[in-house]
């Protein structure tokens, strides 16, 4: 698994609640059997007009956020389908950090499995960040997993919570399966008694 310690990047703000994984990566791209190459299809139906050209109104098509790597979103981000293609697409596009008031369970989990940091912050703080992203051109955020902080260069800093196990795995890029197999004897003995 990819590791994550600290990342500073340009912020793209997506001011919509309940963004579902069907939007993040529409089904027509789920037929592929590879794990990579999904970035160009990210938010396809929102990002393109009917003729296939870029939709100028779409958040990620704004000139200032072309190279964004931090996604700022509203609550319940990633709801719906369990498709891991959603974090694959976000990661492949270039996102390393997603900040939102809340995430759907499966999506949250899937992010960590792919070396992406999903940061939950209180709704009022997220609101503040939306304001800052609008106010400061080229607005950047830094997420530091070692210290569990998110901050900018304009005097904003806050801490976030993440459970220690997920943090550990992400900091060290640990392979879940390898870790579990360290307990293989316990699995075997469980199987013997159940």
């Amino acid at each position, binding site marked *: 698994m990819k590791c994550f310690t600290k990342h500073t990047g340009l912020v793209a703000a997506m*001011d*919509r*609640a*309940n963004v*579902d994984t*069907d*939007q993040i990566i*529409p*089904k*027509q791209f*789920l*037929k*592929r*059997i*590879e*794990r990579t190459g999904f970035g160009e299809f990210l938010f396809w*139906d929102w990002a393109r007009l*009917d003729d296939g050209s870029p939709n100028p109104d779409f958040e990620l098509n704004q000139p200032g956020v072309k190279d964004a790597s931090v996604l700022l979103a*509203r*609550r*319940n981000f990633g*709801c*719906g*389908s*369990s*498709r*891991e293609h959603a*974090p694959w697409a976000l990661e492949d596009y270039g996102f390393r950090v997603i900040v939102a008031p*809340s995430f*759907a*369970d*499966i999506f949250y*989990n*899937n992010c960590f*499995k*792919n070396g992406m940091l999903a940061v939950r912050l209180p709704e009022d703080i997220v609101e503040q960040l939306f304001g800052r992203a609008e106010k400061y051109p080229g607005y950047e955020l830094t997420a530091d997993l070692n210290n569990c902080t998110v901050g900018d260069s304009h005097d904003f800093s806050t801490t976030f919570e993440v*459970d*220690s*196990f*997920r943090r550990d795995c992400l900091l060290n890029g640990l392979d*879940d*399966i390898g870790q*579990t*197999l360290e*307990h*293989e004897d*316990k*699995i075997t003995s*469980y*199987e013997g008694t*159940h």
Partner: protein
Amino acid sequence: MTDSVNQPRTLFQKIWDNHVVHAAEGRQTILYIDLQLVHEVTSAQAFEGLRLAGRVVRRPERTVATADHNVPTTDRSLPILDVISKRQIDTLRDNCNDFGIQYYDLNDPRQGIVHVIGPELGYTQPGMTIVCGDSHTSTHGAFGALAFGIGTSEVEHVLATQTLLQDKPKTLELRVDGQMRPGVSAKDLVLYLIGKITTDGGTGYCVEYTGEAIRELTMENRMTVCNMSIEAGARAGMIAPDEKTFDYLRGRPEVPEDFDAAVERWRQLPTDEGAVYDSSLTFLAARIAPQVTWGTNPGLVASVDATVPKPMDYADPTEQKTAASALEYMGLKGGERITDLKLDRVFIGSCTNARIEDLRAAAEIAKGRKVSDDVSAMVVPGSGQVKKQAESEGLDHVFREAGFDWREAGCSMCLAMNPDKLSPGERCASTSNRNFEGRQGKGGRTHLVSPAMAAAAAVAGHFVDIRQWS
């Protein structure tokens, strides 16, 4: 075993306790998985991962696969035209061969939507932990199992270790007291609940549905309810097993050989008197009317006799914004009467509502009537066996005579990965579970309803209150 074993426990707690392989402070629990269901869309990369790491499937006999999402629902003797779809399905077949996994191929009479065939074949049993790379795995909770959707990395984890790393969810009791009124179905019940607790109201929770209205439901209806737990954000949804559960399972091919002994064990599962949930909410069944979603998530739902809300009906600015963009996408202004909404398409199918009782409910409405000239309607059975059963009861004739298209089993227009899809702007009454933007085809407008409501809408050309249908 923990101390909690001697305390009154919930159904969830019992199943959880019974599957802990390893728990340590500050770690996720290693939870044993009894059954993994596999389909073509979320598994290829997991098998690839196994190969790259030189690993094998730990317990192939606890793994069952079928192709459903991507399959054509037209004549199966013809080749699959979409080469990328075909490659995905071929890949699943090859992976199952290579790793020794039971696979129900397209030509197998038992093929169908994975959440329909699991229970139908008796794989799904009370007390089990069940996972699948699909969020509607919650369906299997109807049997008193702990069943939830996982991502592809986790599919690989389960294949390799037969366990999963899990945070323990909190428990939420959704109790529905009293009896439902005539014309109101399990689908209406669950849509109503999602409308009340909203699309993320269940996040972080495992839901247990309790109360008289739930106990009254048939097994197939319970599956409809549990199926949609994820639409409220819940990790899983479950219903305590009872005589209906055991009667449903008795005689199915994959149930335990000593069935009676299994039933004795399963009888220990229901939540003990005095056990507490982290949170509990109570609803009255008699308040529930037939439901129709009007927006772009399943929580945006109204009673059939109501009007479509307006953004200003909401106090919270984010909700106002959500409602406004949902209305815009749906081609609505707000204020329309639900029964005035005219339809172009009707889809009866999906893992929510494509079992035999669903098809019977729809056929009862369709019988002797005709689909409106303005509507194109299709029925897609949930499995090959459902299709066969329906045909033996003559339901296919009822549907065909009424002008419905009668198809082969699969997910079909629930997610429109195969050729069945809406065109931009088309308005569809659908018995499936998601009304997200573009879910049934780019620009398509989905209204989620029960099978009877969908059939009636097909005939009338607009939504009708099934309670007044004669």
